[in-house]
């Protein structure tokens, strides 16, 4: 066991997989010699060589187009998109190719690529360094989508994603790279070293895709969330005084419906929280699923607490970010009705 922040845990996952499987290759903008603008690939080129860890042209579509070709050859490419906000130029290769290849070839060809991308706000990055586009990808059949909330999960899920034979979108909430951010931006951040999930095995381990975790058991309501918002929701539960269960989805697609249904059927109340914009976000799918599967148990309308339907405004970051107060308010509303 070692104490790792999320960057170190992600780095460790790739290190472990590079050592175990020489078909794993890593590339992206500035990931090679420099080790990535967030340092997630630091030291890997030195350790595994320039032809397994390398820098690329600034062309996200080219990065994923070539990644697919490498995957078809038989490699396991792990491609970094520098910010999730810059994944759109690669959208066609993801939707029309990575997600469709196995299907259209009758199972003959596939590309086991892992696409890593830092996402989310709270770092004064402005509208093009703060986005959470996961809801676009969960609508695309053929893609798996993952978003960890802590170092331990990040490593185990990334290893599972790299080993997965389907394309996996792996979103890393950059706001919690260094510590579990609870939304109180005016208070000092606790480092991962002080958090149990900052204790990470140095070696190989997997966390299966498609399995949620109960971040906090509770009886009165169910909060369904993922990524940075897990910590915001835990804080909100604490501050609201509501004994709510907090579910950390970890994998958005395939989603762990059993875990959700079991919990909401028990509590009868549900709040869904994500940082992404509201309309058509993944929260909409979660809300639809909950009411379809728990309708007769629901005692209050399902609430969605999300980013607003605007770009991420630089100076108004904290008015945009769905903080603990907004979550707590929603918890109170579902309790009151």
């Amino acid at each position: 066991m070692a104490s790792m922040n999320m960057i170190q845990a992600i780095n460790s996952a790739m290190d472990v997989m590079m050592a175990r499987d020489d078909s794993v290759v890593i590339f992206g903008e500035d990931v090679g010699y420099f080790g990535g603008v967030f340092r997630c690939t630091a030291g890997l080129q030195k350790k595994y060589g320039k032809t397994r860890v390398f820098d690329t042209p600034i062309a996200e579509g080219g990065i994923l187009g070539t990644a697919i070709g490498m995957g078809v050859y038989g490699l396991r490419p792990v491609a970094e998109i520098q910010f999730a906000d810059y994944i759109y130029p690669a959208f066609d290769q993801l939707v029309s190719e990575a997600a469709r290849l196995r299907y259209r070839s009758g199972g003959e060809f596939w590309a086991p690529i892992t696409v890593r991308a830092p996402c989310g706000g709270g770092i004064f990055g402005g509208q093009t360094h703060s986005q959470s586009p996961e809801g676009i990808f969960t609508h695309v059949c053929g893609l798996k989508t993952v978003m960890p909330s802590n170092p331990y999960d990040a490593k185990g899920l990334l290893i599972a994603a790299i080993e997965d034979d389907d394309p996996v979108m792996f979103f890393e909430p950059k706001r919690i790279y260094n510590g579990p951010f609870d939304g109180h931006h005016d208070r000092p951040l606790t480092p991962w070293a002080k958090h149990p999930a900052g204790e990470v095995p140095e070696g190989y381990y997997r966390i299966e895709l498609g399995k949620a975790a109960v971040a906090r058991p509770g009886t009165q309501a169910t909060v369904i969330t993922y990524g940075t918002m897990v910590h915001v929701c835990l804080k909100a539960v604490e501050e609201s005084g509501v004994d709510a269960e907090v579910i950390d989805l970890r994998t958005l697609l395939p989603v762990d419906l059993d875990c959700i249904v079991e919990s909401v059927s028990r509590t009868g109340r549900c709040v869904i929280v994500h940082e992404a914009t509201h309309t058509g976000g993944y929260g909409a799918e979660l809300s639809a699923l909950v009411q379809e599967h728990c309708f007769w148990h629901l005692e209050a309308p399902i609430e969605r607490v999300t980013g607003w339907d605007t770009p991420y405004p630089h100076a108004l970051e904290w008015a945009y970010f769905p903080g603990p107060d907004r979550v707590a308010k929603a918890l109170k509303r579902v309790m009151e009705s």
Partner: protein
Amino acid sequence: MTRKKRQQSADTPPHLQLHVPEPAARPGQAPDFSKLEIPPAGVLPQPPVDAPEPELRVFPFGLIRVLDDAHQAVGAWDPQLPVATLREGLRHMLLTRTFDDRMLRVQRQGKTSFYMKSTGEEAVAVAQAYALDPKDMLFPSYRQQGLLIARNWPLLDMMCQIFNNSRDRLKGRQLPIMYSSKEAGFFSISGNLGTQLPQAVGWAMASAIRHDTRIAAGWIGDGTTAEADFHYAMTFAAVYQAPVILNVVNNQWAISSFQGFAGGERATFAARAIGSGIPGLRVDGNDFLAVYAVTRWAAARARRNLGPTLIELFTYRAAAHSTSDDPAAYRPQDEGAKWPLGDPIERLKQHLIKLKAWDEKRHAELTKELDEKVKADLKEAESYGTLGSVPVAPDSMFEDVFKDMPPHLERQRRELLGN
């Protein structure tokens, strides 16, 4: 500063005009190739495969030709292929055309939904398949069925895909002609133009990473060069010196849009190579020998770690874009017939006749033999069903979306099956 600027605005410039490209001739007009420059065959030298790129910058503006107007093979690019290979090439090209003609009829009979011919472009696919190693990986567009045929892939298998019948390995999922054959090293054809080109580069990069010996080749059309994927492929191939051949089949039309809308009015497509610092060869795409020779040259270069090559295959789309298209609406009906560089099959045939290695009688026999072979395969293929005539297991629809079926697809599968 402000003073200076006033001066500038003083020399009043003319009013701006938007240039919108226009082909030389439209329906009702006579085909016009007067602006077309066709250098004689055999004039261009063949550089050593390790020639540095700066020494190759004449090739994108020339046209590599081996077969001259008298059907003789001339010049440094003559690959000097054995007569047996030439006859085999003729056979594969003719088989491709016979197949196309037959399948078009089948589509017209309503036995399938869609078809695309490669008429006039058979030399591209067949000669290039010959010039490559059987283990090299092919990333084609939808108009290189000749690659599969030249690799002796069973027509029956292709027909079953076209019919989406019980023997369709793609389980009825794909539009006709969207072939896929891992065994033949023929990558799954995409309906989205151009996506295969950076994938070909990625495959070649992987082959280099693994110190393999296999190279990759990709094909797109002239119109598709405008897509991002062409740019990505060129950039990544150049940066990593990937062992790949990037082919642009310039058949001069993209559905109703002539090559001017892809930039063909201003430069050749081979010239794109200069900006990336990789060799660009422009070849008469209807000249079997020339196509073979340039492809061999590019393949040798790639195999020796000398990097990628861009090849522009200059040809003409003699048939309609697809069964959904009618060229009479946008180009002169006889434009194809008037195409100065002729027909690839006719030209190789005449060359073989010149070599006394072929004659009309044998050609007629071959034509008949291939027609019967296609008919026979077709008969068998139809016995496995045509589009809609045999039920495809509906729940097979949920397979292969992922390697293992996740719960939500399992639920949907059960809902479809009504339980």
